[in-house]
């Protein structure tokens, strides 16, 4: 009865061809937009490599180990900048990892009420939002002058070590490292905190249950369980530190003379680009593009490695 009554009420509606056309073209449109990401990525590699071609042909791999950068004789080598990029990033991570992970542990343990922990966590994340050019301005006028007496003291006490062998008088590698620490700390802290929060509470309870103290369970259970996320965060921070431009450019001193000292002015690839691109022409542009290509390859490797590590190490609890 019901079926006979609805016979006239409902009829099968066939989709009009225009409907199908809209569907098809929408699908095509969004696929094309998604493909644009890949196209941009390839275009970046292509444009930089093509523009670097002349410099690659002229300097070859010697570009990477030559520490002269002389526009007047057109002799270019990026060793000072590459060394500076790797050194500042490595030192910054060395300082930021213990601080960041320590803060993340502080924010996930119940030392203080969770309300305050949330507030502190949000504040740390806000630090990540401050533009790097503002941090650079702050570094020039506040951090570096405040820090200088301390660095001078270190130079007087430990000046026989080559790393501290220059009298700090202004912009240099060390202030740049410290501003990098401030920039990567929010990343490491926020991601480590999230990964520690995602460890199931059963693991902690089980550790306490068999008699582990708080810190034994942190070191032996919680940190190993969260290690994939923490390393992922550290790699992200490394990528950021390698490519960071403005704050470092403003405080590192931009000297192309190679020196072992951390207190002397230095350079990084991104600082070199930021400083010289505007007024470069001829071979210098190609040499700068070559340097940009080197930076891109370094950060590409770091980022791919980060994604691989996170996939590889992530333990599944569910």
């Amino acid at each position, binding site marked *: 009865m019901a079926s006979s009554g609805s016979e006239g009420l409902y009829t099968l*509606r066939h989709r009009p061809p225009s409907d*199908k056309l*809209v*569907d098809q073209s*929408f699908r095509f449109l*969004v*696929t*094309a*937009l*998604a*493909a*644009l*990401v*890949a196209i*941009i990525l390839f*275009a970046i590699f292509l*444009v930089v490599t093509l*523009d670097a071609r002349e410099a690659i042909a002229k300097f070859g791999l010697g570009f990477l180990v030559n520490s002269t950068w002389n526009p007047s004789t057109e002799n270019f080598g990026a060793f000072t900048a590459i060394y500076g990029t790797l050194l500042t990033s490595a030192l910054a991570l060395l300082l930021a990892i*213990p*601080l*960041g992970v*320590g*803060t993340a542990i*502080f924010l996930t343990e119940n*030392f203080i009420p969770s309300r305050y922990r949330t507030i*502190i966590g949000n*504040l*740390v994340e*806000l*630090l990540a*939002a*401050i*533009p790097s*050019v*503002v*941090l*650079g*301005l*702050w570094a*020039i006028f*506040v951090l570096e002058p405040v820090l200088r007496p301390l660095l001078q003291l270190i130079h007087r006490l430990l000046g026989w070590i080559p790393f501290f062998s220059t009298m700090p008088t202004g912009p240099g590698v060390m202030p740049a490292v410290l501003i990098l620490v*401030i920039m990567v700390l929010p990343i490491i802290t926020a991601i480590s905190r999230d990964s520690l929060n995602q460890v199931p509470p059963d693991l902690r309870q089980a550790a306490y249950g068999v008699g582990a103290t708080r*810190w034994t369970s*942190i070191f032996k259970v919680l940190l190993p369980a969260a290690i994939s996320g923490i390393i992922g965060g550290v790699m992200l921070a490394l*990528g950021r530190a390698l*490519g960071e*431009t*403005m704050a470092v450019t403003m405080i590192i001193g931009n000297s192309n003379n190679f020196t072992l000292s951390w207190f002397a002015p230095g350079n990084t690839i*991104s600082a070199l*680009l*930021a400083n010289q691109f*505007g007024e470069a022409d001829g071979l210098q542009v190609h040499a700068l*593009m070559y340097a*940009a290509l080197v*930076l*891109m390859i370094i*950060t590409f490797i770091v*980022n*791919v490695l*980060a994604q691989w590590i996170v996939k590889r190490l992530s333990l599944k609890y569910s």
Partner: protein
Amino acid sequence: MPSPSADLFFRPGLLRNRGNQLLTIISCLCAVIVLIPLFCVIAYVLIKGIAVIRPQMFFELPPAPGMEGGGIANAFLGTIIVTALSCLFSIPVGIGGGIYLAEYGAGNRFSDFIRFGTNVLAGVPSIIAGVFIYGLVVATRLLFGNSYSAVAGGLALAVLMLPTIIKTTDEGLKLVPQELRWGSLGVGASKFVTTMKVVLPSAVAPIATGIVLAIARSAGETAPLIFTALFSPFWPEGIFKPIATMSVLVFNFAIMPYEAQITLAWAASFVLVFMILGMNLVARWISGLAKR
């Protein structure tokens, strides 16, 4: 027979308990050390900014070197123009790409590749985006014969905003319950109508959050702009001409030996930080709205 070592009371004197206390103190110290620079930076920028900022700075051009006074009006306008241009380029592409990944790309190799590409693009240093647009648009004078321009700056920023927008759209759409799609398709709506009228509106909060965060990031970016949008001491002359932005103004004026320029650098920093923190609060508010 209870021996003294087997009692169940907490004994703070034990080596392991002392060690625990020490480590707890160290982790507290870490948190304090992390918070100190945060407060220093924000407090210093705000205090210094409030001390130097005057309302007429929003209506005046920067002074010639050595002159007094002046303002950041052209840079303020320029930041808004360049950011708006970058939104114009990146939001349609980002949302479209996100729709593809979430709605059409379930489990195929191409979408895995695009996701991987998005992550790689997110890790590309911001200065490389500038170098790329310089090589593509500025040096080749691709944009109707113009070299440095606001459009070039907007394109460079769009490259940086794109991955954030794609990722948040993708993740936001995935949170939409599958039943909604089935329901809509079940009553006869096409896939296009389902996506545009049902799925997208219910994911608008996470997508808006992502876009606001992306804008906040790009408003403060400097590196991609210094050799795409360049700088200009004059009022904006159109989107195909070099244009001043606040972030480049801070960079250019910070190293000048003139008091007036340095004052303007602090004022521009203050306005930037204020805007960006404001946008972050708005983003939090939007995502809070969604959770209710």
